[in-house]
């Protein structure tokens, strides 16, 4: 590609099959306690 740079190599669709183990951190526990941010969490089942 000359005009587009794609920064992601994982498609969210692919996580439907493997995901859902629930071992990841509960989002509100980390720092915020007043808002919900999930996109910054990491998967523990890579």
């Amino acid at each position, binding site marked *: 590609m000359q005009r587009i*740079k794609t920064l992601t190599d994982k498609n969210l669709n692919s996580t439907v099959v493997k995901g859902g183990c629930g071992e990841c951190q*509960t989002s*509100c*526990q980390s720092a915020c306690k*007043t808002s*919900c941010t999930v996109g*910054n969490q990491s998967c523990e089942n890579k």
Partner: protein
Amino acid sequence: MIHQYKNNGYNIVLDIASGSVHVVDDLVYDMVEMYQNKSRDDISSAIKEKYGDTYSSEDIVEAYDEITALKENGQLFTEDAYKDIIIDFKKRKTVVKALCLHIAHDCNLACKYCFADEGSYNGKPKELMSAEVGKAALDFLVANSENRVNLEVDFFGGEPLMNFEVVKEIVAYGRSIEKEAGKNFRFTLTTNGVLLNDEVIDFCNREISNVVLSLDGRKSVNDKMRPSRNGKGSYDIIVPKFQEFVEKRGNKSYYVRGTFTRHNLDFCEDFKEMADLGFKEISIEPVVAKKDCDYAIREEDVPAICEQYDKLAADLIRRQEEGKPVTFFHYMIDLNGGPCVYKRLSGCGSGTEYLAVTPSGELYPCHQFVSYDEYKLGDVFNGITRPDIVDEFKLCNVYAKDKCRDCFARFYCSGGCAANSFQFHGNILDAYDIGCKLQQKRIECAIMIKCHQMLKEDE
């Protein structure tokens, strides 16, 4: 659905359903916008009309073909197929994997914006959790977590260090049962820092996987909103202690966490202050307050706040490039190893996998709901006696919320804070509108920073 925006010189296109992130040139940026609604010829004409001879016909064909290739590869204009998952998702059995222990409903500061009413949670009596309640809470967690290994327990308040002996006892109890139970407790603690001393620091650095240290930034800002009980500011008491704490903490995780209000809409300056004090992991949150509070954020403040988020992003990049990187909680984003769709659909987990425990052992959907008696779920001794409330929270996901369904940020924020929705709209299926706008801006900035880093690495 796609979302496209320009930030810091980058043209960024997000494909929401696939999670794909693309950085594109000006030509593609304009063409992506038209791609779904116009024919190839119409797009070509529109480009020539806008740019004149800047782009040749070959350029336009090339750009069009690249967009088409991404679409065919499932990285652009991807259909959102997750709604079907939600049908099964609603039937799922949820397990509890995280507790917020209100170890002290009391506080030694008198922060003006405190959602917990300085530890009293809407007029509840001052109370400290007993070790018996704390141990029962851990037993409840182990018993209700099925096969989840990692269990999180946050010591929260009020000010948890006002009940430090019990914190130590609960942690020791957790360590004594975790192996046999096949669990791994991750303890966290939120503190205002007033009672930090060597013993506490050593204990936390040994046992507590993440600590949240409350500081609002500049001395004048911090002391205005975070005074002690006698009205004096807390900055001079806590900052040296936090610096010592962090110095001794090594690589263990921590956050210095502030709140900004209408009184410091220039909160990027507070971020800089914290970073200049030597703190490397920083979070600053917008205050959530009733509309009539003088410090509450108003709709008209949103543009100024967004400008600050841009400044903060630029400052973060500068520090990285100077070899002194700082982490800002809301600008962390994992584009390739981030959470799965299930996590993104289930959001924060309040009321299902994350519960709060009051000093007397009552269970609530999260720490923010402790002020609302109607949301009491049960207690740690008898378990959940109101499964109907848990079901209500189980249904709380991005597809159940009108405002989230078409929002580009839905898989990053996962529907926002149920407590904020309840506070502003009286139900948990709405969204706190100002919070949404700020969240969207933070996500845009976070992705822009990632783009900058990844493109620099490629160079």
